[in-house]
Structures are given as C-alpha cells and as structure tokens.
C-alpha cells in the first residue's frame, strides 16, 4: 500500500465557527469559506485476519407434547430473559374458495379482542396490566393469536388469549365500522404508488379465481355482517387443527397444565387443503400512476413449491442474485450505478407453486436503464453460470439468517408455527440447512435454468406512463398491458 499517504485532499467547511477542524494548513478560501488541505499520515500495511469458516447452526430442539383435544405443543426453553411467549395457530379447515368467508375471516381477525365476557377495552386493559404484548389475527391459512408476558404472568395471559379465540364477540356496529374503514382504504388504494404496485404484482401473478388474488371490493365489504364473522370464527376454532408454540423462561412441566386448562379443547380434525397451482406465462405490465419522481419495478418468475427438491439451490440462487450487498443485482444497480437505495429479493413458497421476486424503486428517468440492467443480470447468469465464491457467500448468508431467525421468542415461536403449517418440525429445517450447506454451483445453475428463463418472466413497472413508455420501448422492453392505477384499483 505504499504511496497512499501522498494523496492530498481539500475540505471546505460550511460553518467554521462551529465546525472547527483539527489543526491543518489553510491553503485557500472559497466564497468566504476556508478550504483546508489535509495532509494524510501514512497508513500502515496490515493484513486482514482470516476468519474460521462458519458452521451450520444447530437449531434448538423443542420439547413436544399433545393436549387432550389434539392440539400439538412445542416448547423452547430459553431461561435467560424472564419473558414467556405463547403463540396459538389454528389452520383453516379445508380451503375456502368463496370470497365472503375469506373476507369475513380477515375482518374477524381485525376485530378479535372483544369477548362475550369482556368488552374490547376491558380485555385490552387486563392484558396491559399483565404487561402483555399480544395480537390476534386471521389470514387465508390460519387463525393465530400470540402473547408475550414477563415470566409469572403466563397463566393469566393464556386464559385471556383462549377467551379471545373461543368466545369472540362481533357486533353489528363494529363490523360495519371496520368494513367501512377497509372499504375506504381499498377505494383510495390507487392514490399510493406503492400500494398500486403491490396490487399490480398480485394481479399480474395470480389468476382471477385464485384464493391469493386480492379481490375485495367496497361492494363485497358492504355486504359483510357480524353473523358472517361469527360463523367463520366458530368454524375455524371448532374444526381446524391446532398448534401451540411456547418460547421463553418456562418449562414443559410448568406450561402443560396451563395450556391444558385453557386450550385443551382446541384441535379439530379437518385438514387444510392446499391452494391450487397454476401456469404462469411471461408478461409485462405498465401501471400508469403519475405524480411521483420514482418508478417501482418488480420482476417475478416461477419458483419452487414447498417440498420441491430444488428449493435449497433456488434459495442460494436468489441469495447470490438479489440478496445481500455483495449480490449481483445489488452490486450492479446500487453500488456501481447508484440507481436505487436497495433491491429486495425473495423466494416465496406456497403449497403448489412458488415465486421468485426481485423489486426495487428507482428515479423515474432511469427506469428503463434499471429494467435493462436487471434483465441483463439474469441473462448473464444464465449464459455464464455462477462462481464458486458467490455460491459460498450466499450459502453462508442463508445459514446466518436461519440462526438469526430464532433469536427472539417471537421469532422462535413464529418459526415453529410456520413449520407446523407445512407439516414440519425443527429437524426438517435443520435438514434443509444441511442441504443448503451442500448446494453446488451445478445445482444453482440448474435451478437458474429452470426458473429464470425469459419465457416465465413477469414484469410490473409502475410510474408515469408518459415518461416511461417510450423509454421502455427504446430499451427493448415490450409492454403487454397498460393499465391506470385507478382502473387497477377497481379491478377484481
């Protein structure tokens, strides 16, 4: 590193009376502001230490039990911090293809907390006095409820949580009010460029009749009644299979009597049906939303479904393509070209389908350049393959992420619940980490060839049509569908 010390730098200080620099030579003044010459001291030559290669993290094994009603229990003993977290999951029995139960479920999740014995305010107050961090909600796949309290308050907290799940109260006025709020939010969706883009991502990907497609309209919401919420909540609790994850400063012997007393009746026997798979064909959507200086870009391709043998290799592929700061797309679009603040990359895995997603926000006048650069990275990877070094880094990042993903009680409980939803346990996840550690460059290249081909790429670009259309055309991006954000907002 010899010679580095001979560099000279100048520094203009805007407010020298406040921002006094260390002693340096004043060499000139510029518009009344002194400019200083920094004489750099020589830098010592130092070698970076070589770290020991990281090992595959050993995930903690939970203690397992089953309650009398059939609910499975998994408990991770973490005594260091005096908190206990309990998360209950009840899987949807069967698959609801109809819109109304799905909407009713989502709305019911928003309103849970009031019970037949306690008003919502009284319920919240009692939880507060326990120091409880709690929430209840319903998604397309499960009803969930979680609570975290200082150790010693877990029994009272579980009792309240069980009451919220098994004796919810839905009233006409509250239901109408919540439906109206959702309806207004839904009506104004087009005003926000990011929400418009999210909707376009959803509609460009999922077919019209798929349960994951966002289709709620103000009219649908207006038709919802409290009885619909009651019915769906009752059915899920009565019929759905149940799981309880516990993480924190408690042990199975202490928790089982508490769980049995309050959640012992949970656990139906109707299994969850998987959402159907579907074919994806490549397309490019341009969503017209002017008034912003940015454009949103998403590039999606098909990916592995749950249980697909290529899942681990695909995760490594996405890691090296659009993962951390060393990944290809981050390095090119952010670090080299300064085109974006950040790139998001995800492998989204469902029962019978999967999706690889890369998204970013860019300055509007550089949208075409960003799209071309992004596509170029995919094409280059397909043409030239991947390097051993980047595969190794991506694998290590995934292993670190897995270890970090169970660092807190909330993360650990959520991870256990997520695994249970897919019929898996910690041993399965541990096995997947071993698989990731063993992924080869050839396997990554095979996954790339399977998923990243031009024919399956779905692009969604949201911004000002007048500013974007010609530039995209010039860059060779053929747009298949142009839709205004407002029209998209009204589309089912």
């Amino acid at each position, binding site marked *: *590193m010899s010679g*580095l010390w001979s*560099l000279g*730098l100048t*520094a*203009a200080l*805007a*407010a020298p009376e406040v*921002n*006094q620099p*260390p002693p340096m030579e004043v060499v000139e003044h510029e518009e009344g502001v002194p400019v*200083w010459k*920094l004489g750099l001291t020589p*830098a010592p030559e130092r070698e*970076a*230490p070589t*770290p*020991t*290669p*990281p*090992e595959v993290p*050993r995930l903690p094994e939970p203690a397992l039990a089953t309650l009398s009603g059939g609910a499975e229990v998994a408990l991770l003993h973490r005594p260091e*911090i005096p*908190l206990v977290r309990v998360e209950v999951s009840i899987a949807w029995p069967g698959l609801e293809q109809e819109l109304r139960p799905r909407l009713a479920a989502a709305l019911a999740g928003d309103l849970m907390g009031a019970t037949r014995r306690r008003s919502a305010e009284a319920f*919240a*107050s009692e939880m507060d*006095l326990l120091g409880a*961090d709690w929430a209840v909600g319903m998604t397309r796949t499960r009803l969930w409820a979680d609570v*975290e309290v*200082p150790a010693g308050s877990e029994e009272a907290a579980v009792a309240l949580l069980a009451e919220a799940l098994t004796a919810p109260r839905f009233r006409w006025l509250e239901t109408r009010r919540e439906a*109206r709020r959702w309806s*207004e*939010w839904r009506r*104004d969706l087009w*005003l*926000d*460029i*990011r929400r418009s883009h999210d909707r376009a991502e959803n509609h460009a990907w999922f077919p019209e009749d798929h349960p994951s497609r966002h289709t709620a309209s103000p009219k649908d919401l207006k038709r919802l009644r409290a009885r619909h919420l009651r019915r769906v909540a009752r059915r899920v609790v009565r019929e759905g299979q149940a799981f309880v994850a516990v993480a924190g400063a408690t042990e199975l012997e202490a928790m089982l009597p508490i769980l049995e007393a309050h959640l012992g009746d949970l656990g139906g026997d109707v299994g969850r049906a998987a959402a159907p798979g579907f074919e994806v064909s490549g397309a490019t959507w341009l969503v017209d939303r002017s008034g912003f*200086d*940015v454009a949103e870009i998403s590039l999606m391709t098909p990916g592995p479904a749950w249980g697909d043998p290529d899942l681990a290799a695909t995760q490594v592929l996405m890691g090296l393509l659009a993962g*951390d*700061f*060393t990944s290809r797309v981050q390095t090119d679009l952010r*670090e080299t*070209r*300064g*085109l*974006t*603040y950040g790139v998001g990359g995800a492998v989204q895995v469902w029962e019978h389908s999967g999706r690889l997603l890369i998204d970013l*926000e860019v*300055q509007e006048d550089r949208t075409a350049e960003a799209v071309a650069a992004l596509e170029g990275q995919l094409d280059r990877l397909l043409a030239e393959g991947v390097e051993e*070094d980047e595969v*190794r*880094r991506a694998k*290590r*990042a995934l292993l*670190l992420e897995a270890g*970090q993903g169970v*660092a807190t009680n*909330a993360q650990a409980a959520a991870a256990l619940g997520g695994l249970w939803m897919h019929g898996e346990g910690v041993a399965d996840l541990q096995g997947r980490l071993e698989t990731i550690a063993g992924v080869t460059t050839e396997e990554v290249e095979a996954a790339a060839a399977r998923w990243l081909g031009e024919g399956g790429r779905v692009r969604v670009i949201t911004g000002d049509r007048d500013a974007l259309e010609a530039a995209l055309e010039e860059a060779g991006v053929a747009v298949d569908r142009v839709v205004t954000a407002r029209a998209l907002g009204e589309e089912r």
Partner: protein
Amino acid sequence: MLLTLLPLALAGDPVLDALHLEPRVEVLDNGLTLILHEDHRAPVVATSLVYKVGSAEDRPGRTGKAHLFEHLMFEGSANVPAGAFDTWLAEAGAVNNAWTDLDWTAYTIQGPPGALELALFLESDRLGWLPHGLTDEALENQRGVVSNERLGDETDDNSWPIYALEAALWPEDHPYHWPIVGTMEDINGVSRGELMAFFSRWYVPGNAAMVVVGDFETEAALAAARAYLGAVPEKPPPERPLVESPPLAGEHRRVFYEDMDDAQLYLAWRTVPEGHPDEAALDLLSELIAGGRGRPLDDKLYYRRARTTGVGAWSWNGRLGGEFVIWATRDSEPLEPLIKHIDRELTRIREAPPSQEEVDRVLARWKTQTLQSLEDHASLADALGLCWARFDTPDCLDSDLARYLAVTPEDVQRVAQTWLTDDRLILSVLSFQEAALAVPGSAPVVPP
C-alpha cells in the same frame, strides 16, 4: 441526570435484575471505549461501533453530510479495497449495516464468533485510514443511492409529512429542522473534501465506543480489540456544542400540501432533551393517552366513534431537545374538529392526574417492551452503545427503566401541564384539492 442507583423499592424486580448487565469496559490509550458483554445464548457475535455524531452536526446549506458519510464508510479504506468490506464479511458468514440518527451514528456487524476478529480489523481500518481508500467514483455512486433513499421517503405517506413536521417545529437554524438524509441540493453539492473534513473531525477514537455482545471469550476479544482498534492514531476528540431549543411561543398553524390517502393532523410541542427529569413521564403520557385500545384517544376517536382513520402519539427526546406529537388521520373530512376532542383529553389530564391503574398499565407494557428489545445480540449491542453515547455509561439499562418505574400519576399530570401548553404547532397535511379541510389560518410549509 440519570439515576445511578436503583430505588430500594425496585430492588429484586426480576425484570430489572435481567437488565442489570455488567459489561467489561476499557478505554484504550487512543481514547476509544471498548464495551464487551459475553452472552452465550447462541453462536453469534454482534458489534456496534457508535460515534457521537449525527445529522445535528450538519449545517444549513450543508445538510445530509453525516448520513452520506455513513454510506462512504463501506466503500474501502487503506487496507480494504473497494467492495471488500461487504465481500470479506460475507465470506465469514457475517452481515453488516449502519444507521444515522440526529445525534448518533452506529455501524453494526453480526456473524458467527469466527468473524469477530475480521469485524474489529475492518472497523479499525476505516476509522483510522478511510480517506486512503475512498474513490471519487464511490462518492458519486453513493450520492445516487442516497438521492434514491430520499425519493423513497418523499413517496411514503408516513415519512414525507415528518419532514414538514420537523421543519415547522424547529427553527431554521436548529439542527433538528433539517432531515437526516439532507436536501437533494446538499446531497449533490457536498464535496469530497468537505466529507473528509467531516471524517477528520468526528471519526476519532475518543468520539467512539465499540460494543461487542455475544459468544466470545472476553480476554481474547480484548486482546484483538486492543491490537486492531488500539492501533488507530489518537486525535483530539471534538467538542459538541449545545444548541438552545426554547419552547414554541404561541400557536403556529401550518399546512403541507401533498397527495395523501387520508388527511393528516399533527399537534406538536417542543419539550425536553434526553436525560431530563421529565423525559420518562412524557414517554408514559404519550402511551397513556394514545397507546392503543383502551386508551382515551384511541377509544374516543377510533374505536367507539369513527372520527378518525388512525390516531397515535409519540414523545421523543434527543441531545438538543425533545418533541411531543399527537397525530390523527381522517378521510375527506375537516381536520379542525379533531383538535377539540384531543384538547378535551389533554385538559382532563391537566386538571386531574390519571389513575394509578392507568399508569400501571403503561408501565407493565413498558417493562415487557424493554426486555424484548434486548433479546437479540444486535439490539443489545446497540442498546449498550446508546447507553454510552447518551449517559457516558454502558450499563444504564436497569437504571434507565427504573426512571420510568418511579413515575407517578402526579408526574404525568405535571408534565402535561408544563409542556403540553397552547404554545404548539398544528400541522395539516393534505392534497391541494382538499385544502378546504385544513385547519383554518394555516400557512404553507415546504419540507427542506
């Protein structure tokens, strides 16, 4: 001003016991503070290198320097070629990041224990010899990255109004007036020389603390830290002048026109700097008045009557001052009627203290949240670093919580009387087409 001894009544509280950490502290000859806390819950090590500098050290016409500089810290130093900072850490199975606040800047690394020595080396090299490796090309690229970061904020209904709020609440020459990320003009105008002078002044060992938390052995980590960070040449630590921030005089009505889903209303007061005896009571007041279901503003404006589409409050305290803010959102209806409802609740608290149960509810949640924030190594490292930055002691976690546990209902009433007065800002944020819904008599404000 921070309590250093716990009140007798709080001794034996298991939450406080859990927060009572005794990290190893050593000040190196060059002035850098080392804070080491072994925690073997998981095979992970987290570092947080905190510097006592933030956007408050920027100046009007040269805003965003502290934040842009944070980005440059990843672009190479004397013995770390461009791009190698991230790549070497990734090879070690570690990740890194950084954040710039108004008052502080922190650089974080998390990875397996085997990555610790590399992390210490990298941090020492950029602290000691950053300018030797930084290129003009890297600076220009990061200008682009940061410009995009600001544009992202401008696109965000939750972030962009805050630019207007802070600009309207603080005088133009107060360091909390301008955004952390800086103005677009300043981001693009600052020279490499200015940035290097900024580095030379603020990035010195005596202005920094390296926190290491996780699965390591203290003596070995100390030896490595001494070897790497101790090699950085000593420079005089900078003075950080205090800036006066008196309360607002009178009621200031402002409006910010911007396309929004819902119209937004902010009521804001200037309050006290961090460490002030009223800080804890102000924090608890914000939770007590609008911290969720069962709290007065949430119930009366959102749950029982749909007068708003959202409501909340926050109290924030920095080195140079604090703010208390109540916000509410509304869909296509005038904002002014909401002020009457909010004022009614404030009057109630000013006239009579809240019940002990109301305060207990908030305190119980506060304890849980404090513990939760320490669960992972990275958060704990940041928390210890901020203890050092704010209070010059790395083990403030229990004594800081004790301040909150000592707050009485009368304290909450008193801070409402003292600080939430008629001297305040009322800011309407809505689209120009809905200008008629703004609080009458509001003068336009444009974010810097």
